[in-house]
């Protein structure tokens, strides 16, 4: 009886000590990672788990996946993850592994040297159509009068639907599909007077879903003040021109008139009211005509020295009223002085009647007949 008891207790003691030892040797006490979860935003899938912490040891992890096809048709096949067949962090980007819109099973285990933990499997298989789609980041700018939009680059699986309108009553909304983010896209040419508003949503064809619309952003072009000022300027400028030009033309005309065809009035003293013969007193026929210079094509003068007598001159001028004669004759009783002759060319002098006047006195006589520059 006692021996039996001792034997059983011995067996029990052995089983309690040896078996656990044998068991723990296989598992090596490396715990499996816990709390597996997938966080997916905008088609970026991140597998996360609680890390296995060991003092002074770096624990690595290995991730494997199995699509629904594998779980249905070839259930023993697990495929190692593209980026996380040996990773340090307690997370893994499985975006490149989840490439179809079917449920995927994921599993993780810890690795320490040659030891590996048991596999820890994600509770619920993950389907990428449960990803959270956020409204896309959107930047509106105006390039002169152009409405330009730049959307966030979310990858090749994303397209965007952009809605834009002019904030005015009775205007309809326009829509445009933008196939790629990250590049500026021209929407419309804006006209001043009202703001233009834009909003966008992301579309993922692979899962047949779209995000909510982003916040509406509005922009306006300033064009009102400037054209108005310009218009006023233009108007006044035009009015000015309308007034100034005729005025200046008229003035110029006057100037030209004076310069080329002046209306000069002969002073009364030189006007011939009666026959020229009356004016000339040819009493002193023997007076020396000291110097007369006559330049006229009609007279055919002899120049200096002996000039025509007064009578000749008068007679000639009566018959040749249209000829230009410029004579300044200077008679001086007694002493003959050479007269100053001033001549002008035939072309520039107008026609004047010749007048002679003789002062019957001993004072010097100056006779200016007619001249004009």
């Amino acid at each position, binding site marked *: 009886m006692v021996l039996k008891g001792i034997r059983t207790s011995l067996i029990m003691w052995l089983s309690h000590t040896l078996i656990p030892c044998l068991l723990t040797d296989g598992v090596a006490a490396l715990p499996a990672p816990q709390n597996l979860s997938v966080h997916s935003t905008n088609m970026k899938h991140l597998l996360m788990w609680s890390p296995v912490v060991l003092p002074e040891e770096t624990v690595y992890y290995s991730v494997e996946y199995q*699509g*629904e*096809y*594998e779980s*249905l*048709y*070839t259930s023993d*096949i697990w*495929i*190692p993850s*593209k980026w996380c067949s040996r990773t340090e962090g307690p997370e893994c980007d499985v975006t490149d*592994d989840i*490439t*179809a*819109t*079917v449920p995927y099973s994921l599993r993780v285990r810890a690795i320490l040297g040659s030891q590996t933990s048991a596999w820890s499997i994600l509770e619920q298989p993950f389907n990428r159509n449960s990803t959270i789609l956020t409204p896309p980041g959107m930047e509106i700018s105006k390039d002169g009068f152009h409405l330009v939009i730049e959307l966030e680059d979310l990858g090749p*699986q994303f397209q965007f639907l952009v809605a834009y309108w002019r904030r005015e009553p009775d205007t309809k909304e326009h829509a445009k599909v933008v196939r790629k983010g990250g590049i500026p896209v021209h929407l419309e040419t804006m006209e001043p007077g009202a703001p233009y508003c834009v909003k966008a949503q992301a*579309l993922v*064809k*692979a899962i*047949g879903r779209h995000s909510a619309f982003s916040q509406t952003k509005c922009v306006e072009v300033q064009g009102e003040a400037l054209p108005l000022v310009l218009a006023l300027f233009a108007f006044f400028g035009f009015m000015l021109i309308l007034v100034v030009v005729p005025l200046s033309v008229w003035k110029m005309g006057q100037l030209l008139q004076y310069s080329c065809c002046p209306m000069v009035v002969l002073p009364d003293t030189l006007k011939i009211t009666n026959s020229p013969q009356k004016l000339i007193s040819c009493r002193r026929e023997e007076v020396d005509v000291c110097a007369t210079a006559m330049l006229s094509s009609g007279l055919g003068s002899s120049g200096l020295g002996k000039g025509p007598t007064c009578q000749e001159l008068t007679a000639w001028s009566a018959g040749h009223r249209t000829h230009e004669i410029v004579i300044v004759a200077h008679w001086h009783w007694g002493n003959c002085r050479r007269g100053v002759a001033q001549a002008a060319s035939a072309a520039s002098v107008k026609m004047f009647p010749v007048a002679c006047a003789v002062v019957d006195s001993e004072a010097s006589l100056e006779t200016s007949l007619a001249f004009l520059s």
Partner: protein
Amino acid sequence: MKAQGVALWLLGTALVLCSMYTHGFRRCLTSVDMHHLEECFQEIKRAVQTKDIFPNITILSTVETLRSVKPMDVCCVTKNLLEFYMDRVFKDHQELKPQILRRISSIANSFLYMQKTLQQCQVQRRCHCSEEATNATRMVHDNYDQLEVPSAATKSLGELDVFLAWIEKNHQETSPA
């Protein structure tokens, strides 16, 4: 008057049937990103096609089989060929290299998704299988059975580009989503 009325009624019915038919047909489309699948295949094409030891035999790409499929039969033929690949080709092909395995997995899972969308049509009785469609499918299976399993699977894998191109051509969406 009566004749006119009858004619109009017939025309109306014909139009309604036509629209129903085309509407139904258009519904049976897969919305998979074919571009991604084609890219996937291109990456493994060389590795798979060089292992093909029977270059003169084709399983899928006979002129009669695919090109002569009528629009009405597209849904049925697509569904059958997807089944063919998933049930036989991918299962029979034993791949060891992880890079190739990943891409085959991607294609296989995409096929599974396509099949699910077509099954909806089948439930709605819009995926009717005519005799020609059934014959075409049977021909493919027979060709596959002519060869030994590993070679047949390799060959069929190598002909995936033909199948993918055919799907893209026949399942184009005419109206935007």
